[in-house]
């Protein structure tokens, strides 16, 4: 099937099987590898991107959903030169160890803070527990979400 949609503000066209997950559309077709494959069944959150402004697991979004959609990936959220406030907070707290889950963590946090600009610890626990970090950086993730909330609020 063919689909036309925007990724990080750029219009893209694809011609792929309709059940091909967005994850592999991004990684293998569009060569945007910041979105990571971890489990393929929405257990880890490493492939989290924004679809029309909301966080989704790209491994669960089929190509048939994409026509007309707006996708933002970690590459479009911010850049090393101009990081998004969530990325800046992640850098400030030096959250990453291996870093493999952090694209998904950051995309989840950015979407969550959009909906809830000043979350409590309990709300962070509710929104961020679908994102697995095998290195165990959770203490720093919590702190970085609070810092990002402050940055975005000011």
């Amino acid at each position, binding site marked *: 099937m063919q689909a036309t949609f925007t990724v990080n503000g750029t219009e893209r066209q694809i011609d792929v099987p309709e*059940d091909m997950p967005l994850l592999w559309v991004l990684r293998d077709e569009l060569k945007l590898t910041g979105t990571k494959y971890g489990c*393929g*069944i*929405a*257990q880890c959150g490493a492939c*989290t991107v924004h679809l*029309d*402004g*909301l*966080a*989704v*697991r790209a491994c*669960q*979004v*089929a190509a048939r*959903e994409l026509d007309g959609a707006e996708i933002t990936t970690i590459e479009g959220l911010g850049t090393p030169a101009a990081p998004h406030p969530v990325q800046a907070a992640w850098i400030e707290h030096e959250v990453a160890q291996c870093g493999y889950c952090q694209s998904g963590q950051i995309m989840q946090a950015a979407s*969550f803070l959009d*909906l*809830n600009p000043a979350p409590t610890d309990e*709300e962070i*626990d*509710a*929104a961020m*527990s*679908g994102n697995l970090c095998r290195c165990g950086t959770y203490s720093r993730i919590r702190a970085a979400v609070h810092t990002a909330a402050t940055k975005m609020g000011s």
Partner: protein
Amino acid sequence: MRYRAVNRSLTKAAALAGMLAAGAVLAKGAEVLIEPPAAGSVSVEEGRAAFDRMYDVVTHPRCANCHVGAENVPMWYGGAEGPAQPHGMNINAGESRIGAETLPCATCHRVNETLDNDPHAPPQAGLEWRLAPVEFEWFGKSPAEICAQLSDPDRNGGRDALGLAEHLVEDAGHRGFVLWGWQPGGGREPAPYSLQQHVNDVLAWGAAGQPCPDGTTGQDASQ
């Protein structure tokens, strides 16, 4: 809130609405029919037996796991799949019952009319994933409690048995959660019997006067 107000399957569902009186076409060569038994043709005993089967269905994990109470925590597993346990990942669907306050169900449970997906992946149906309204809490309830609930217009969406049957068929027409219960994909155990049998049982139970296991009728209980 920036949810898409209407998902694409709803338009398709509207086209199906005209067919509801006769039933819904669910897939090529398969449809569910609403054929209410004639008044007085179903005994109370037969009505109770129909309810017992309805109870098997609504308390099956495919149905009950999302018909949970005011804690808004969906369940995983149950029945033959092992002890039921709260949905992993600290999931709470909130008062919105769609996770708007926390993590939207749609983050993982996408709209997918094929219903099928991989083992242990988040189930997907033709409607936006959600918990049933809290009044429809079935998880862990006794037959008498559920019978009373299904008979109480305040807790069943103001429906009689025919209305309940139509509700089932309408949902199935959207390729929604009811249909998913019997076609859950991913190697999951489907709800018992069949959707047609379930619709027939609801209608038979209604024709018998909605009898409940404790000897009252559901209509009594609701009054």
